[in-house]
């Protein structure tokens, strides 16, 4: 079943075309990795899917429903699509638990007491057990990013978007965040990642898309993209990156 479909998505900032007609299909439970050089349009594409950026042309379908109709209220859509950012973007004035509970409380009207056991459970599962009442600046980068993932998960989204979530981390902290992504994949979460972690994409992705200049140049299973890329641009990019 197709969970998410993009049809010819075009995004411009002024005269600068960042996404230039992107088609993409994501099946339920799939993990799709977007790879490509910085500025290829990966992050912008994720922001478009979450309706943080309006698109110029094309359409985005979630469960067969067009979510890119101009004037559509983005708020209900965003509750169904979770997003995690490169720079964590935790709210610095709230504890980890408050960060996680804010949206369920304000959007779904759930109470602190009813949420707390679930939050504790999520924290335990992702190795954050005793960090509930720490403020973001008291946590390591890897812990902050895991709190950010838990915060998005607390809204029980149907799709999760990850925008280079390990790029701001020290190398030894990358692994703990990637482990979380593996757990989510096992649980059947539908995920789209923009990533520079080629090893992880090769091992865990169901589909890899190589973007260049706002277009998907080549897409396929990781074995194809990393093993036998058909396009010259893909080969050149991978040769540069994996060197």
């Amino acid at each position, binding site marked *: 079943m197709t969970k998410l479909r993009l049809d010819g998505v075009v995004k411009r900032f002024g005269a600068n075309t960042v996404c230039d007609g992107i088609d993409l299909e994501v099946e339920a439970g799939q993990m799709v990795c977007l790879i490509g050089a910085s500025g290829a349009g990966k992050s912008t594409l994720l*922001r478009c899917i*979450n309706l*943080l950026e309006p698109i110029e042309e094309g359409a985005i379908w979630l469960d067969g429903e067009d979510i890119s109709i101009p004037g559509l209220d*983005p*708020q*209900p859509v*965003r*509750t169904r*699509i*979770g*997003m995690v*950012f490169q*720079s964590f*973007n*935790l*709210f*610095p*004035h709230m504890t980890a638990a408050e960060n996680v509970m*804010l*949206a369920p409380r*304000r*959007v779904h009207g759930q109470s602190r007491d009813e949420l707390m056991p679930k939050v504790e459970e999520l924290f335990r599962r992702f190795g954050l057990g005793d960090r509930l009442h720490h403020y973001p600046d008291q946590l390591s980068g890897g812990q902050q990013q895991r709190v*950010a993932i838990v*915060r*998005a998960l607390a*809204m029980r989204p149907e799709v999760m978007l990850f925008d280079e979530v390990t790029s701001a981390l020290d190398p030894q902290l990358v692994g703990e965040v990637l482990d979380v992504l593996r757990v989510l994949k096992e649980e059947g979460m539908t995920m789209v990642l923009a990533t520079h972690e080629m090893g992880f994409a090769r091992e865990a992705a169901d589909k890899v898309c190589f973007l260049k200049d706002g277009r998907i140049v080549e897409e396929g299973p990781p074995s194809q993209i990393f093993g036998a890329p058909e396009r010259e641009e893909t080969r050149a990019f991978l040769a540069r990156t994996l060197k």
Partner: protein
Amino acid sequence: MTEARTRGPLPRTRRQIYEDRLRRRSLLIAGGSTALVFGALFLLIPLAPGWEKVQRVFFNGEVFARTLPGLLEAFVLDVAIFAWSVPMIAVLGLLVALARDVSNPALYPLRIFATVFTDVFRGVPVVLTVYLIGFGIPGLGLPRPWNSPYIWGTVALVLTYSAYVAEIFRSGIESVHASQRAAAQSLGLRDKDVMRYVILPQAIRRVVPAQMNMLIALQKDVALLSFIGPVEIFRQAGVYKSLMANFTPYVGAALIFLAVTVPATRYADYLLAKQRRQRS
């Protein structure tokens, strides 16, 4: 000299010895130059031809002692006007700051109003606002107590300071990084919740030191109400001046203001320094 340097509990490094010498040297210079300047002031000012008269008229110990209790009593009114103005300024300032950023087209007039409000009340000298509102509105012949200069003088201060405070709040709101808004929106929070729970708490914390400085300025500007009637400290000092033909009560009033504003300024500086440390 060399013996004194090596007598410490630990053998000191070359650098420590050098830095100690520097420190002693700069202390000596600072002490010397300060003594020189203040000494000159103390010696030279009394030599001025009018000094005796100035001393008698401005620094008269006897007048000071006699008027200080009365001045302090009048200062209570300053403090009271200050105290009931502050909450009104905080609320109005915040509302104006928020009104300038509303996106709802139906509320567009509110946005215009807020913009005009800040332009007008920041642009007109406080003393003029106090005159115009403090004399103008009671002039409408309103019934008691609505013709009181206390009320309308306070209103003038509240309007002026709300305009400044609103701009400071706005700068705080704009200083919160766009990624915070994006993160909050991506969670499905409504715009008003994004503002209330994510942006405003961070913005308000950031502008506390700047708002402290506004409070200090407000405390001083309460004295402007003396022009329209209320017998607060400045006016009381004026009364004493006329009675005793002596300006010492003004010096007393200045000292009372300093006793309040200097500690407050130091506290604001401390808050600013603390904030800078936290961010670095």
